[in-house]
């Protein structure tokens, strides 16, 4: 599914989020993002730590106030909403967090955690109805009804992540931002949670923004993928196109850095090893942010910031030479 064939659920235009960090310095965490997410689609966002992928997700659900830009959810600008309208919007958007140990209140029972959105939005009329809804949600995420009375510490990481998913789904959202939902989990548990997210997407018609640094998992779950570097999207394409035909030197290097669990493939692979570290988003390089580590960088790259242009239908790249 691409945004072309489907009505966009979310349209983000020129979104920026800067943090003022004292000494008159500004950290440009998210810098001028433009993308769309189609209804029922999963857009994967990948990048290394500090690239702004989580900040982007959090800004879109208004956990942060944006510095510039707009995000339209079914046509209405998320950042302009206030009061009752904002509250109504919050029912439509939910978030699953990375750390299943830190994102559940240890003093709440599972029932209270999952029912919190129901209580806030007044969706559970009576205590009986509330209990029934919690049990339905537990069942949806593969937990048992009797788990409702327990507390988070009694659960394993994978089970806690299921509780976090049940809470995200409680108010019946259309759009869920999954911020590294599996990176804290063991390998054998990751597949359980990913399959659950995919099943729920199918049965409930959900749209996902799936943020992760694990490119293999993002490939598996996403319809389209955006690659971020230092606050900017450097490449965006359908999943098969991006992984099969990466055009940005950073995407190429990132894909080549992922180890593949097969010694034969590993022995035969050519690997691009990038030199150096990520530059600071406080004082990013001029022109193309990737040029300090790019094997193909030229003078033009230092002088001019590359446009995020479409090189094929649905495939956009921010590189002068792509």
């Amino acid at each position, binding site marked *: 599914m691409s945004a072309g064939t489907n009505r966009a659920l979310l349209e983000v235009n020129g979104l920026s989020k800067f943090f003022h960090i004292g000494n008159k310095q500004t950290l440009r965490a998210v810098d001028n993002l433009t993308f769309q997410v189609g209804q029922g689609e999963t857009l994967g966002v990948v990048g*290394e*730590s500090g690239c702004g992928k989580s900040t982007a997700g959090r800004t879109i659900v208004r956990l942060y106030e944006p510095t510039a830009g707009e995000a339209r959810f079914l046509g209405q600008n998320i950042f302009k909403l206030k009061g009752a309208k904002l509250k109504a919007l919050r029912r439509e958007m939910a978030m699953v967090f990375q750390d299943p140990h830190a994102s559940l209140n240890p003093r709440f029972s599972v029932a209270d955690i999952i029912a919190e959105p129901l209580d806030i939005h007044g969706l559970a009329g009576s205590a009986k109805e509330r209990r029934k809804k919690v049990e339905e949600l537990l069942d949806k995420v593969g937990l048992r009804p009797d788990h409702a009375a327990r507390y988070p510490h009694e659960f*394993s990481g*994978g*089970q806690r992540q299921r509780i976090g998913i049940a809470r995200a789904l409680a108010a019946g959202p259309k759009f869920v931002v999954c911020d590294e939902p599996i990176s804290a989990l*063991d*390998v*054998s*548990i*990751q*597949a*359980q949670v*990913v*399959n659950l997210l*995919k099943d729920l997407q199918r049965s409930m018609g959900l749209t996902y923004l799936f943020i992760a*640094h694990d*490119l*293999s*998992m993002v*490939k*598996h779950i996403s319809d389209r993928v955006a690659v971020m570097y230092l606050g900017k999207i450097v490449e965006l394409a359908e*999943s*098969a196109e991006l*992984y099969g035909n990466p055009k940005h030197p950073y995407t190429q*290097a*990132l*894909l*080549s*850095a*992922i*180890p*593949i*669990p*097969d*010694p*034969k*493939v*590993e022995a035969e692979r050519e*690997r691009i*090893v*990038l*030199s150096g*570290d*990520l530059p600071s988003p406080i004082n990013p390089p001029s022109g193309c942010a990737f040029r300090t580590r790019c094997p193909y960088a030229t003078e033009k790259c230092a002088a001019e910031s590359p446009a995020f242009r479409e090189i094929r239908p649905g495939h956009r790249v921010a590189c002068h030479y792509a």
Partner: protein
Amino acid sequence: METILRVSDLHVSFAARGGKIRAVRGVNFEVKRGEAVAIVGESGSGKSVTAQSIMRLLPSPPSRIEKGSIEFKGRNLLKLPEREMEAVRGRDIGMIFQDPMTSLNPTMTVGRQITEGLFKHQGMNRTEARERAVELLRLVGIPNPEKRYGQYPHSFSGGMRQRAMIAIALACNPSLLIADEPTTALDVTIQSQILRVMKEMQERFGTSIILITHDLGVVAQLCDRVVVMYAGQVVESGTTWELFRNPQHPYTRGLLRSMPRLDLPKGKPLIPIEGTPPDLLAPPPGCAFCARCPEAMEVCADRDPELVPVGPAGQAAKCWLHHPLAKEAVR
């Protein structure tokens, strides 16, 4: 090739409220000179406890090495007096930890942390030690090593700190390097830099490596042999080549099936391993993987299988399926 480390029947437990957590339950493996061996397993599988037992880093109590031996170059490390063990640490065996942010001393310059071992174990004077430390920093790929020598860890990035840790671990030319999840806290592009440095060091100095990890991709890239751990036991071991191409334990097969592969087209759903690992306060009497195993037989719940040789290349699996009677067994 000469065997430099042999771990035999190692049992380690931790005292906890409600009993003893049996974290390592009869682990056997060996490491040859110049070889890179991976210990793979999920959290709680006992892989880090095994590594820390080799270095005798576990505080006791609560930990207790119940039985077994760890023979390093003919000496049982578990029987050495603490003073002799101090000489082994750093000089003969170097260690790299997962988190480069917290395992360096923030109050000492990076240079001093490298030279510490050189003064202690090699009796170098200040000039010699400084020269060697700068050389080591250059070797692990830190630009401008003379300047970096005098800086504190906070001015190093994550990847740079891990390089500095490798420099510290390699300072005295140890014959064995234990790397406990050395790249888990790092980004993939930095991970591939660090793995390259480790590979170079192995080839250049003939250092043996024990790599503790949960990432099978990293194993395929760096290691010659693999030891797969589950619930405190070795469930499969073999050459990397054989084990990945022809896994013989249902757990190993399950792990490989549950991971999406970057090099294969997507489409097929992932096959997860259902359930969770057993509670090591009261390990099950039979095979520890039995409750999650799609191929479990009746015998699996009652009796714990032995690690038996399978295949020609020295591969071994701890599974009843390799028993001659398994074909007729009740499922």
